[in-house]
């Protein structure tokens, strides 16, 4: 589904784009008919939106993040990508909030014809995909197209998307990609990877291609061969970022921890705080759950099937004619966390969490997935210690 990977440095050695090079990249991608989506400042947040030019990038803006807290702030430099995850993620474009799946018409004779929704041909270019978010995209790929049944519309949007990754040099206080093994350095799957470098030698980007189509775009940009100073600086900045993670996960097998924690007391503690609002699931770049809406027009002879995001925190999510399965907030928070960190492995052979920190930031009551995991880990240790004490 993704474009053919070429060995890095093969036909497209790493090169350097100057500050204006990103402008040329946006122009080039647009000239190729792509809708370029990237970060830009709107209404007090760095959001993802269509960019007409690189001028709209958030030059000189950073973000201040904490559990339950998000604020943009001016930086002392003009870096364009010195901000971490905002309220949206790329799933807003690849797995949109609401899509029509098919429509049906009933004729005068009662006969029904169903028309599948033809996915609109889209040709996105995502500019500024973080390594954790690239992993999140790959995780949704597995869910939507990796199983027995493929979601054709997702496949269409995804295979048409050109991914420009930007390595992380400015992690937020809520980031823990190192614990999840997803960042801050680039991992395979991008078309182009950039590392932003800003020093006395100027504002520039170390660039390399990960696919043939990435290499082709790179060749059409004004660039110069990568010099050692830029290479070293880029590597050091990313390494430094890895050492400045704001959060960690307990260094244990999280899947096993979740499987062992189904009856933990901690769930009561978090349930007393959680509002079951579902914000965390809407912000999370991997959460994929949806519901269906069947609608008809006034004649009653034209019907449509829509699919929209839904949250496992909704009481109706587990509706059965006899009542919902998960009624208590305890069971709904437990479902979310154990799915993210545990049972996702059973279902899709990967973690469902990439450590982007969005769920903490956008939680109105500052519930922190890392804190909950640490608490469950501690409870498991206590349980084991207690068990030993009781043994003869």
């Amino acid at each position, binding site marked *: 589904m993704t474009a053919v990977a070429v060995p890095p440095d093969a036909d497209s050695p790493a090169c350097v784009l100057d500050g204006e090079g990103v402008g040329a990249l946006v122009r080039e991608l647009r000239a190729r008919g792509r809708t370029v989506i990237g970060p830009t400042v709107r209404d007090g947040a760095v959001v993802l939106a269509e960019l007409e030019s690189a001028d709209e990038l958030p030059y000189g803006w950073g973000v201040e993040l904490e559990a339950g807290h998000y604020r943009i702030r001016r930086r002392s430099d003009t870096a364009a990508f010195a901000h971490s995850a905002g309220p949206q993620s790329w799933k807003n474009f690849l797995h949109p909030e609401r899509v029509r799946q098919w429509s049906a018409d*009933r004729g005068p004779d009662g006969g029904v014809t169903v028309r*599948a929704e033809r996915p609109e041909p889209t040709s996105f270019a995502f500019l500024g995909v973080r390594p954790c978010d690239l992993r999140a995209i790959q995780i949704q790929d597995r869910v939507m197209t990796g199983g027995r049944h493929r979601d054709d519309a997702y496949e269409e949007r995804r295979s048409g998307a050109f991914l420009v990754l930007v390595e992380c040099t400015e992690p937020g206080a809520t980031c823990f990609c190192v614990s999840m093994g997803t960042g801050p350095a680039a991992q395979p799957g991008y078309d182009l990877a950039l590392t932003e470098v800003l020093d006395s030698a100027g504002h520039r980007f170390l660039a390399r291609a990960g696919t043939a189509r990435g290499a082709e775009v790179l060749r059409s940009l004004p660039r110069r061969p990568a010099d050692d100073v830029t290479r070293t600086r880029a590597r050091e900045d990313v390494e430094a970022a890895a050492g400045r993670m704001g959060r960690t996960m307990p260094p244990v097998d999280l899947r096993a921890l979740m499987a062992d924690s189904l009856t933990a007391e901690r769930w009561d503690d978090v349930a007393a705080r959680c509002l079951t609002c579902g914000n965390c699931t809407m912000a999370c770049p991997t959460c*994929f759950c949806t519901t269906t809406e069947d609608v008809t027009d006034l004649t009653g002879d034209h019907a449509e099937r829509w699919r929209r995001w839904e949250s496992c925190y909704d009481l109706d999510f587990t509706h059965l004619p006899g009542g919902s*399965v998960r009624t208590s907030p305890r*069971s709904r928070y437990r479902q979310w966390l154990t799915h993210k960190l545990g049972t996702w492995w059973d279902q899709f052979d990967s973690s469902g969490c990439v450590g982007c920190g969005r769920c903490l930031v956008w939680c109105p009551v500052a519930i922190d997935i890392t804190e909950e995991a640490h608490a469950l880990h501690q409870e498991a240790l206590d349980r084991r210690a207690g068990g030993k004490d009781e043994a003869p």
Partner: protein
Amino acid sequence: MTAVPLPYRVVGNRAETTDTRTVELLPVGDGALPAFRPGQFAMLYAFGVGEIPVSVAGLRDGVLTHTIRGVGAVSRALCAVRPGAHVGVRGPFGTGWDLATAAGRDLLVVAGGIGLAPLRPLVQAVVSMPHRHGRLNVLIGARTPEDLLYRDELEGWARPYCGVTVDRAGTDWRGQVGVVTTLLDQATFTPHDTTAFVCGPEVMIRATARELLHRGVPARHIRVSLERNMHCATGHCGHCQLGPLLLCRDGPVVGYDRAQPLLAVREL
């Protein structure tokens, strides 16, 4: 294409009980869905109303047969379809009963209420291949005698035993009253050499499995069909999760060795 319903024509709709009907469907056009296996389910779409999971309750002569109990908007709309009308069908979905792996073994079929519907094609298959398996015992629980499904067929299922019990009955009922497990004493089977197929309300599944384990039927030879909310049936909507399982994909039929620890956790 498993995301878009294929129109099927209603060719039969008969009452089983006051709230339950059996609907027969044939494809409208040339194309038909792949063959269903006993235990698998379809997503049935009532025009403009909605779509629900319904097990296949019969497969003879290429007619897709479903027995539906009207409990809400969609199931009632499906019960009300008239012959000639169109219904949208997607499928087949899910794991089946996997009868083939029970060859040579005694079979124990235990049904509660509408749970008999998904078991019917399994029983029909067994009856049509008399030498493939050991003894067939069919144990049926219903709320009242009036709620009993497939009354005319039950006699043919006693190979050697088909019993019925009801929760409550009027004075004219000569049969048994009580939970379905009370019928086990009349069934003849060698526990360790038996495969059980169980479908019904979750409490009934748990009680039945507990009793079967107690009598020595191995957990992995107890197959249960589980129910959760389902919207997509294609593994994409997340609704049908039971811990590690996506029941539209890993179920609805699950070995009790996997199901037992999951069903033991409240509200999982």
